[in-house]
């Protein structure tokens, strides 16, 4: 891929959510660029994810840890396992820099997570900061802002 088209970027965002919904977590791990982060702020005004509590701020190691744990024989909170379901609005293409090879999209979405007889709904917006790597699109940052990050939640066990 030389330069991704608008459709390529939009397809990427949809494909990423589909991997999570279908539980293809190893494929999902391969979508990330080196030195990348999945960030879900607790404080919507947070500028530095490290100096204030975040809900998630996961580098490659922590993302792998989460995915490996889901497979574990003694991962009791995932017996039975959780499933998730994303409903995405069409992503906005906010920034395209062909010289730098960086692209930014913003995608409002609804997220449903279910386990046993329980199901909950979250509203969120994802900002993808994407880069071109080895001819493919990769995530440098996926920032997920919940509509209500200050609210009290029970377990949120998968990736939004």
């Amino acid at each position, binding site marked *: 891929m030389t330069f991704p088209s608008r459709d390529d970027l939009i397809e990427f965002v949809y494909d990423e959510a589909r991997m999570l919904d279908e539980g293809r977590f190893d494929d999902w791990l391969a979508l990330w660029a080196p030195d990348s982060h999945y960030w*879900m702020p*607790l*404080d919507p005004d*947070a500028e530095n994810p*490290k*100096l*204030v*509590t*975040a*809900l*998630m*701020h996961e*580098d490659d*190691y*922590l993302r*792998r*840890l*989460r995915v*490996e*744990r889901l497979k*574990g024989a*003694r*991962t*009791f*909170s*995932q017996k039975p396992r959780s499933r998730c379901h994303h409903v995405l609005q069409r992503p906005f293409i906010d920034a395209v820099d062909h010289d730098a090879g960086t692209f930014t999209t913003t995608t409002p979405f609804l997220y449903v997570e279910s386990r046993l007889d329980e199901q909950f709904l979250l509203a969120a917006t994802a900002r993808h900061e994407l880069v071109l790597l080895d001819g493919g699109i990769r995530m440098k940052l996926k920032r997920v802002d919940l509509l209500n990050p*200050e*609210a*009290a*939640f*029970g*377990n*949120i*066990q998968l990736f939004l």
Partner: protein
Amino acid sequence: MSRYAENPAAVKALIRPAEVHRDVYVDAEIFDLEMKHLFANTWVFVGHDSQTPNPGDYFTTEIGRQPIVMIRHQDGEVHVLYNRCAHKGTKLVIDRTGNTGKFFRCPYHAWTYKTDGTRLGMPLRKGYDGTGLENSASGNDMARVGAVRNYRGFVFARLSHEGPDFESFFGESLSSIDNMVDRSPEGRLEIAGPPLRYMHRCNWKMLVENQTDTCHPMVAHESSAGTAVRIWEESRPAEDAPKPMAIQVIAPFMSSYEFFEEMGIRTWPNGHGHTGVHHSIHSDYSEIPGYFDQMSAAYGEERARAILGENRHNTVYFPNIMVKGPIQQLRIFIPLAADKTLVESYIYRLVGAPEMLLERTAMYNRLINAPTSIVGHDDLEMYERAQEGLMADGLEWVNVQRLHTDGEDFDAIAVENGTTERQMRNQFNAWAKYMTISMQGAGA
């Protein structure tokens, strides 16, 4: 039919030397009595005074079920008031935090109060002339809690106007708060951002007990901490490669039974106690460049070493908070119903210390205590299974017998093997005391 109200003997009978009846966790009447008695008779944490730094700044919360507002008055003092207009009951403020200016103004009929709760006035005051309003509580100040104490920035309140004073209630347990504050070269903490808020469908006491339960980490957290250790070992570049901060935080949860046995548990009177007397899961964090020099400059080398050598794990302040000195974290277990608890996890910045310490603190909070934390998922799964399992009628007692000896004296400070359940028994001893001390017939 009421089984426990004004029946102190029945309440006390729920606590045996080495087991407790399930009603302490599942019974709605017991929960109501906890709200009425236990949370009124004890000193309950309200907030940190850095949450309300300026005059007029307020923080709304609850003590038990009571709507409470903590507010900074014009003279700098922090007051703890019932968040209720004396007129018709409207909550005066409902934002979690805010600034009310020089006075509260009720949004319903514009009755006003100073920021220490003193009544100011109302529109059309002459309508009350000759009605005797001044003799009614409604014509008076906002209601105040029984007693307030700001201890080194940590604000506690006792709802009841009678009861133990602050020092005799907490005694030497305050050394854990001291250690947390002393870790700032300036002896000062500041709140760092909003708290994590995590809803638990279980009784609040399960969470308090878990703070000194040292036989669960290597079992319940095998899925998170065990996996963390495994993938680190599989992928680390060299045998002696420095451990990244995340590994340092999460790996000690897989420490051996021997590690936890040797770390020790200390109990204090009135239900307070802590794990990590000799060492803890926080002992082996790497040094933060520059920090020890700052501490030595502030306190002298010997005292700095003593402060930083104290690595207490979890300190329970009965009834419902836990403090981690080495992490500058405070967690409050807010009871909402017999089977519903809101856990809020706060972190604090050590004023004058390197930023990297706050980075580790914030990382600890999110990796261990967030609703999105895999370690939190491990724990909550166990609490919720217990809350449901306790409904089994075949067995109505919960065991807290580990390393129990006959005739335990909880009025004495004790240091024991780190896997003892003495601190859980200590909590229930205090629970029975403060549940019944204000009941009719309690002296009988």
